[in-house]
């Protein structure tokens, strides 16, 4: 009897596995905000396609069709694609370390990810962790007039493994953005 049950369970699992895999094709963007003072908890769980659709159709000041205007001014001539390529090709290691009375900032690359960490030492004592996989570097697309294609950046989330993108903890609020 136990053997029959075991066989049936095995068959059911084998049959369900491809269906479960097919059902997991949707990538989800999750945002979790906890405000400590008011004990407020907000969880947003949206499919990436829905977010992209909204972004591509928003047409407001400084944001058109998924492109955000970086407003750098004419006197700033930054070659973003070259910087991104240099970061991508750079070996693992610490790139930036800033220590001050206000905050410590670290930028380092490790195992195909660029990590930016900020530890604030006053006010809200915020701790910020940004994880940027190198795949996102390829998706960073800058227009000729200092615009950044946010929609293309988000589209590349589709290829990312599940994991945290941004994590902020502070005395006032905690924010976590992750993809799954």
């Amino acid at each position, binding site marked *: 009897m136990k053997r029959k049950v075991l066989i049936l369970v095995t068959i059911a699992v084998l049959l369900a596995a491809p269906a479960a895999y097919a*059902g997991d094709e*949707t990538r*989800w963007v999750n945002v979790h905000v906890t405000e400590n003072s008011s004990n407020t908890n907000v969880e947003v769980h*949206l499919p990436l*396609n829905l977010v992209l*659709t*909204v972004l*591509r*159709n928003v047409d407001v000041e400084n944001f058109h069709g998924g492109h955000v205007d970086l407003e750098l001014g004419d006197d700033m001539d930054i070659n973003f694609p070259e910087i991104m390529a240099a970061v991508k090709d750079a070996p693992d290691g610490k790139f930036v370390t800033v220590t001050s009375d206000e905050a410590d900032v670290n930028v380092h690359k490790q195992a195909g990810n660029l990590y930016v960490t900020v530890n604030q030492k006053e006010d809200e004592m915020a701790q910020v962790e940004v994880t940027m996989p190198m795949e996102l570097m390829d998706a960073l697309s800058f227009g000729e007039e200092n615009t950044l294609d946010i929609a293309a950046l988000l589209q590349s989330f589709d290829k990312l493994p599940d994991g945290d993108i941004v994590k902020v903890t502070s005395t006032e609020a905690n924010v976590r953005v992750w993809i799954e």
Partner: protein
Amino acid sequence: MNSQRGMSTFGAVLLAGTAGLLTATLMMDWMVVDVHVLDVSETDDIHADVPLHIKVPFPLVIADIATGFIPDEVFEDARIPPEARVHKELVLETIRALLDTPDAELVKVRTEDANVDIYKDGDTLRIAVDADDAVVRCNVPIDGILEALEDWDWETVDPQMLFDILHAAENGDLVTVATEDGVRVAIKMW
């Protein structure tokens, strides 16, 4: 002696008419507005005596016909601001993307005063608000809203749009509101 007793012509017409009327009634979309006002001054029992109970069944076909008789001039002054019209594509594309979204809980908010949950369930967006002073449940037919907004001219107020959405709503509760002072309102589709 073997004479058969047949149905009279009048009886047949009456029966056919009644059957037709009944079928038409059953085929129609009905909206039922159900209002209870409970006396909760001394009890929290939701099944306490009901001092007021109003139930108004309303066939939507009547509303469809009635809106057709409203002269266009009535809505001439009620024009949609151009700023809203600019976002037409954003709104339509967002709703289309929402329809394609798999069923899931999309938003969950917990505060000291209220809890809000928004689920997508098939073609319906289910909104649940549990506040200190009221409990609200709302089932929004996403496909009905999309259809109504696609047909809308995005220039003038169109009451027919509301009824198009109601036609698309699933049978059952569309909106229910229960307040702490004993008012229970339910708008049901049937």
